[in-house]
């Protein structure tokens, strides 16, 4: 299995506080990995450090090469708050904007946008602004906004935050249909059990366990030790 993301010896300090300590893992093509940890364990910080949005020490390789603009362009990052991603007056404009900005012609860009909206179950909402959708729909629209660029790795930060059970089920079904590698940061254990095959347990800025989702997320002692239950 070709690695799409490799992290080695990653450390991050915010002021005088060490928030990530010697993080190392790799993620292969098509793999779905959970990044699980209690609030403040360092999940989001780790994602930001991987993406180069926070200064850190250590090595991050994306698709076998050191992190670069080209490598990052092949990632799809879904932030916790969809409003951080969607701001145009219609979903279609939100989805086509990065494609047009990269020089794609309007016709194919529009087709890709409509396909992505259909893939997330929002086919009839191309002309609707994101602000008029429910939170569950906005989350799916945010996923569509990254799917439109055909990413090889999807990174999701707390995708189920503030979602009702029905929206969580819809999101689970959507993610399981996607053929791309996924790294999902969350503390929603049931959701992670249903959407990932491997889990990294983060505790106090270090990886406390790395194994199949079923065994890591089902180990009550491990989860209690990490402050999750």
């Amino acid at each position, binding site marked *: 299995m070709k690695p799409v993301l490799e992290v080695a010896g990653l450390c991050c300090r915010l002021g005088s506080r060490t928030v990530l300590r010697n993080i190392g893992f790799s993620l292969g093509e098509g793999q779905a990995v959970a990044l699980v940890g209690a609030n403040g364990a360092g999940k989001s910080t780790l994602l*930001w450090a991987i*993406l180069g*949005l926070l200064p850190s020490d250590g090595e991050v390789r994306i698709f076998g090469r050191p992190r670069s*603009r080209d490598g*990052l*362009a092949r*990632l799809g*990052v879904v*932030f916790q*708050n969809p*409003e*951080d*991603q969607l*701001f*145009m*007056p*219609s979903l279609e*404009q939100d989805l086509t*904007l*990065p494609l*047009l*900005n*990269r*020089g794609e012609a*309007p016709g194919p860009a529009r087709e890709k946008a409509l396909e992505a909206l259909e893939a997330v179950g929002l086919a009839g909402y191309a002309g609707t602004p994101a*602000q008029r959708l429910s939170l569950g729909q906005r989350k799916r629209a945010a996923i569509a*906004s*990254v799917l439109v*660029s055909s990413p090889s790795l999807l990174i999701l930060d707390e995708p189920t935050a503030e979602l009702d059970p029905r929206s969580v089920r819809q999101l689970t079904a959507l993610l399981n249909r996607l053929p791309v590698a996924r790294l999902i940061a969350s503390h929603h254990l049931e959701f992670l059990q249903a959407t990932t095959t491997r889990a990294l347990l983060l505790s106090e800025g270090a990886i406390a366990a790395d194994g199949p989702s079923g065994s890591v997320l089902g180990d009550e002692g491990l989860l209690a030790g990490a402050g999750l239950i």
Partner: protein
Amino acid sequence: MILRRLAPVLLFAAVLFLMQWFSGRGLTALPFLTVAVFLAVVLLGRWIPWQSLGARVRPGSRLFSLVLFLHITRHFVSILGQETTRVLQARALCLRRRWGPGAFRSLAWALAGILGRSLVRAERFYAAQLLRGLGE
């Protein structure tokens, strides 16, 4: 509606005017400019055809940066408005007295909180757009 929105801006301008008056260093046009700019932005915001604006202007054209700037500003003003409403509603629910030293102190903390939250939201928004390739 516009008068209701104008009230805090008028209050801000009035406080600014009084601060200048009492400092004795002479008055500037800043309070009046504040109100004028607010009114201009509100009227412009209503006049601009937002829906068709984005569709008409293509990346690479001269107007693209301006249109993107307007869309981002509009979006962020809306985020700022939501954050401010939430914080002030939360403060109003916790407050026992509307006026007095405690009330003013809590208002100061609430406003400082809005600034902090706005910076966090701005940072996340910037990061998200950068990763979507819009910073290129």
